[in-house]
């Protein structure tokens, strides 16, 4: 799978340039810092041309040699690396263990009318906003509109409205956004951007303590 548009690299809303993620662990009287080295961080920057669904071990678990291109920013929506790489190698959890805990949250994303599916790793996001922003990048013809506090995705070209829905663990199709984010991540099996016209048949909004989680 390739990105539709290689030049489309929206600014990260988390500000991923290195100066900002540079952390200083200050002891009293010391100004020495733990600098997040470009050489180690490159795993994140390398996702430039990649499908956002690719797994990226943010604190340098990926070990190949890198070319860091500082102009490239990964699109918004992904978890800011600072939360994962506050300090390199801390807590001391081995890479394969981190990956083992991570890689079970890939879900397919289908868009009504599109011939192919994409895959996203829900673990990469912290909120619905980030997820939808990422979907917006992936299917770059869409923008998200907040419409009456519902999140709608609109195709810029033909004005068709899409509603983000998901299939949960019980096999039911739900509207994205009702339950707390973490609960959603646990229960979401796949995503579908459904045409608004079809979404009318979906169940009405379920209350927050719905049964979609185990």
């Amino acid at each position, binding site marked *: 799978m390739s990105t539709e548009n290689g030049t489309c690299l929206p600014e990260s809303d988390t500000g991923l340039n290195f100066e900002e993620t540079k952390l200083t*662990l200050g*002891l009293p009287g*010391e100004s*020495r810092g*733990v600098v997040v*080295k470009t*050489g*180690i961080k490159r795993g994140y920057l390398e996702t430039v041309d990649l499908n956002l669904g690719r797994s990226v071990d943010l*604190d*340098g*678990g990926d*070990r*190949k*040699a890198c070319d860091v291109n500082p102009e490239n920013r990964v699109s918004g929506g992904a978890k800011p690396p600072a*939360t*994962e790489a*506050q*300090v*390199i*190698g*801390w*807590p*001391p*959890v*081995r*890479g*394969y*263990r*981190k990956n*083992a*805990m991570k890689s*079970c949250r890939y879900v397919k994303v289908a868009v009504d009318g599109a011939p192919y599916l994409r895959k996203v790793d829900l673990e990469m996001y912290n909120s619905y906003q980030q997820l939808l922003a990422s979907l917006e990048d992936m299917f770059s013809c869409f923008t998200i509109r907040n419409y009456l506090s519902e999140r709608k995705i609109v195709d810029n070209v033909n004005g068709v409205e899409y509603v983000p829905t998901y299939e949960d663990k019980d096999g039911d199709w739900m509207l994205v956004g009702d339950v707390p984010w973490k609960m959603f991540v646990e229960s979401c099996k796949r995503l579908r951007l459904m045409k608004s016209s079809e979404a009318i048949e979906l169940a009405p909004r379920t209350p927050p303590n719905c049964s979609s989680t185990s």
Partner: protein
Amino acid sequence: MLKKMSYSFPEDVLEHVFSFVTTHKDRNAISLVCKSWYEVERWCRRRVFVGNCYAVSPVMVTRRFPEVRSVELKGKPHFADFNLVPEGWGAYVYPWIEIMSTSYPWLEEIRLKRMVVSDESLELISKSFKNFKVLVLSSCEGFSTVGLAAIAANCRNLRELDLRESEVDDLSGHWLSHFPDTYSSLVSLNISCLGSEVSFSALERLVGRCPNLRTLRLNRAVPLDRLASLLRRAPQLVEFGTGAYSAELRLDVLSTLDGAFSSCKELKSLSGFWDMVPAYLPAIYSVCSGLTSLNLSYATIQSPDLIKLVGRCLNLQSLWVLDYIEDSGLEAIAASCKDLQELRVFPSDPFGVEPNVSLTDQGLVSVSEGCPRLHSVLYFCRQMSNAALVAVARNRPNMTRFRLCIIEPRTPDYLTLEPLDVGFGAIVEHCKELRRLSLSGLLTDRVFEYIGTYAKKLEMLSVAFAGNTDLGLHHVMSGCESLRKLEIRDCPFGDKAILANAAKLETMRSLWMSSCSVSFEACKLLGQKMPRLNVEVIDESGPPDSRPQDCPVEKLYIYRTVAGPRFDTPTFVWT
């Protein structure tokens, strides 16, 4: 004539006596007794252990020990596990294999840890040693399934292939099919680190034709509904690792799996269990009472289910589990697993800011109270108190390995807000057999004073975000008589302690210091003064002497060596 006879045994008698002396330490000791013992010993040494592949050269080893059958090598320092050692640093095994391919044609066993193993190395192994039996690659990297195919195809006498925790370039699962149909001597297979599916029918046939198979650790890609047919083909298994232990509940699958597990009367160890679903837990209940080792560290089931499971494992000696076990689960373990010797509790959400589980210092105290044989602990948690540590120390003076990781650096005692010096001090004071210790939390120089005073048998110490001054490091280096490995990160230790204890470094395997305050000048000085140490400055941001004098080096790795400076240093290592 009489005098001579009373002083020397015939060589074959000595050799026979030496054959009962097996540990490396003891073999090294007897070789120092006198020249003739040195000679006899070196000719009959069959196993060699090299703790640091750069401490000695392969030529030196093969020259001294011409008849070796088993080699064990370790490469990168431990902190490489946490990405602190840059890619390309070293620890290549190929030069060793090259030399051994001509010097040790009868080599049977190679065990490597944290080394870079290329496909060429694996191919060379597979072609050079006709009687090759055991290959263990622990936390290694640099090879792909192409190399594995060569091993499978050419090693007719292979018994063990164990890839534990290695990073393999997993191109496809076809390599397994390279075991010839006539091959049937497999005893142990561990492919748990591999990502892609191996050919299931090839695996089934392999398992079916190897009657001596006792260890089988599958990878995540093997689905749950395939387990039963494998187990049925190998009811003699002693150690088994599942693949992903997750599927929609189907009673027929559950019942088949239960039956298959029940037929394995020898099972002592279980592992795997990625993505575990509680629905299939009952399938393993029948083997629980026989289990001595259980690795649930990938099993994302919650405390109540975990309790149901471990409550049946009354003979458990080793348990690895996620912090989903919670304090309540650890209490249950303390009540039922009286034989427990080793406990590792891993964090389910290491980067989360808020605790996601109710696992605290109390859980640790419970097991220390209830499990009299517990001596090896690895514990990730978010809060700790001096009181808890003192309790653990008093309960378990038999502790030999104690690694505590309080997730947030510099976290104080949550009850008193004081440093945890006293708590760790109690550990080293009461646990006189302590060989390995990892510190965390808020710690001052005082904890190092305790360690230097009491930890006389300590061999390995890991320190992070601790201490105030060089005095801390000095306490450790001057007081810990048995210290072999010291690894330090993000501590305010500078030049003074290292330079003052330079001689100590020759008695140790290695010292690692990163994000500390050691200057390049001190490193150069040390390197000059101590020719039998390799002093490596690892700095990816450029030559260290291009920066101001007092700018500390990024990373420092010092190790003793008789091989001199190494020839394969990358550009970011300065020696």
